[in-house]
């Protein structure tokens, strides 16, 4: 009998037992240990199931907390012998690895020359910061051409592939792929895009063998504090107005500059 009882019959039996239990009626004693809830799993099985569910809930909470509260590592930069700090970054159209392989992202090269998936840096105060950005992504017209101009850098200028640059017309050529902007310091540098028909790098870290533009500029770090920086191109593909996902996540298109 037990072996031939269907799953639905077992379920109905369990529902009946449950109803009687919660309405005060006597619970049918298990006929054969296989048709009631108590007999559906052995005691060891129930304990195992409970433990597994508990661990799943705990793991879910840990993942949620880490994702919500955790932040990428901080890369600490020190001034060199000339009293300046060199920061090298790259922008990629798709990070290529979990947890968000399709998200566009910045990467930072640490002082040991290794690319790190982080956008948080620590730099000394009142120091000249020399930034080099290897830009590997394609471009498009800007939503607001106002961020097509270079502002806040030393001399109000940047260079692209060695040539001076003051403003980019995002409506012509390859457009602008991303911007490097620290709004509270008035710093904005648009990063010219690569041709979308080129064989672009598809996963980070990209190497200079892939099509890219090298943008360089310098600025003076302010006094101690934390200064958010970001990209002003709404490059969160598939998100409302392009402003979700990587545009709202530190470690991708947003970061902190911690000045000490």
């Amino acid at each position, binding site marked *: 009998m037990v072996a031939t009882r269907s799953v639905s019959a077992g379920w109905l039996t369990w529902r009946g037992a449950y109803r009687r239990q919660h309405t005060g009626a006597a619970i049918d004693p298990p006929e054969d240990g296989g048709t009631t809830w108590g007999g559906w799993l052995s005691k060891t099985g129930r304990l195992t199931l409970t433990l597994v569910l508990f661990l799943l809930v705990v793991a879910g909470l840990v993942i949620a907390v880490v994702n919500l509260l955790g932040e990428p590592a901080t890369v600490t930069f020190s001034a060199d012998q000339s009293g300046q700090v060199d920061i090298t970054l790259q922008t990629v159209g798709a990070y290529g690895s979990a947890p968000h392989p399709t998200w566009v992202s910045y990467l930072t090269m640490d002082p040991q020359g290794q690319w790190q998936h982080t956008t948080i840096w620590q730099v000394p105060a009142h120091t000249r910061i020399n930034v080099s950005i290897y830009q590997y992504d394609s471009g*498009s017209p800007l*939503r*607001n051409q106002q961020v097509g101009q270079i502002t806040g850098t030393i001399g109000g200028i940047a260079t692209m592939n060695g040539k001076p640059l003051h*403003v980019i017309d995002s409506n012509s050529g390859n457009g602008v792929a991303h911007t490097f902007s620290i709004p*509270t310091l008035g710093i904005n540098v648009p990063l010219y895009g690569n041709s979308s028909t080129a064989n672009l790098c598809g996963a980070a870290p990209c190497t200079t063998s892939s099509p890219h533009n090298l943008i360089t500029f310098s600025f003076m770090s302010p006094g101690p504090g934390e200064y958010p920086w970001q990209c002003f191109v*709404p490059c969160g*593909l598939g998100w409302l*107005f392009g402003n979700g996902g990587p545009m709202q996540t530190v470690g991708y298109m947003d970061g902190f500059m911690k000045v000490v």
Partner: protein
Amino acid sequence: MSDREVPASEPRHWWRLVAIWLVVSVVADVLYLALVGPHIPPGRMSSTASGASFDFNVLFVMAVPVLVAVWVYMVYAIVMWRSSRGGPEPAGGPDARGHLGIQIGWILTTTVIVLFLAGFGTYELVQPEGSGGGQGPTPIWTPASHHVLQVQAIGQQWKWTYRYPSFGGFETNQLVIPEDTTVAFHVTSLDVIHDFWAYQLGVKADANPGQDNVAYTTPKQLGTFMVRCDELCGLWHGAMYNSGTVVTPSEFESWAATTERLLAANTKLLPPFAYSYIPDANGADGGYYPDDVDPYSTAETYGAPQSAGG
């Protein structure tokens, strides 16, 4: 002796209460107006800021007597009519009955106060200059003067930029306005909802994509003021602020002319000035759009017109 007769030994509680209430209320209001009132935010930097401070002070001065009345009566009752140990149990007597005069007086007084505040508040929402609030694209209050400086405040994740249509439509991170000149802020957004809050100016208006929200003010003091976004708008909402400056009219003219010249190269790349812009698919093709928004519209689009293929 009738129920309503007061024994000769009984003090005149009513007149005592009125006297105490009157003295305490006057003293409290005078102290408030002298010591606190002048410092109530947002201050006196503009006509609308002064209006907001004045409104707050009026409401506070009116609220104090009401508060004092409740507190004075409570304290007086505790002191004068408390049950003494070993004395008779308090019991309802003639004085516990309703008093028609007091009831009518109380209802009339509170009615007058509430109606006055409703009328005052409604009037003050319009005067002066629309109280600095966003009035939408067709403001109820409009300035009589034709000499109004138009400044467009554009919110985007996460910064404010400002366009000056009277000076070639240049767009800048700086907000500079002249003293003693009525300014019309045209507040809009290029993405989500922001809120333009020029704190010391007493100006606050929502920035909605595709909408022109007009707020007026007239700066009355030179100096700097803070601009913040007051609508939770994403990751760096807390960093979406900058400062503005009120300068003399001549300094403003000089600044505007210089800035217009410096930004000329980029100004010619901006779309023509419009009072609102429809965010389009520009920018990594990023965006899904509400049903009533055509992302490929060439009208008032903040960016280059796009082909249907995006």
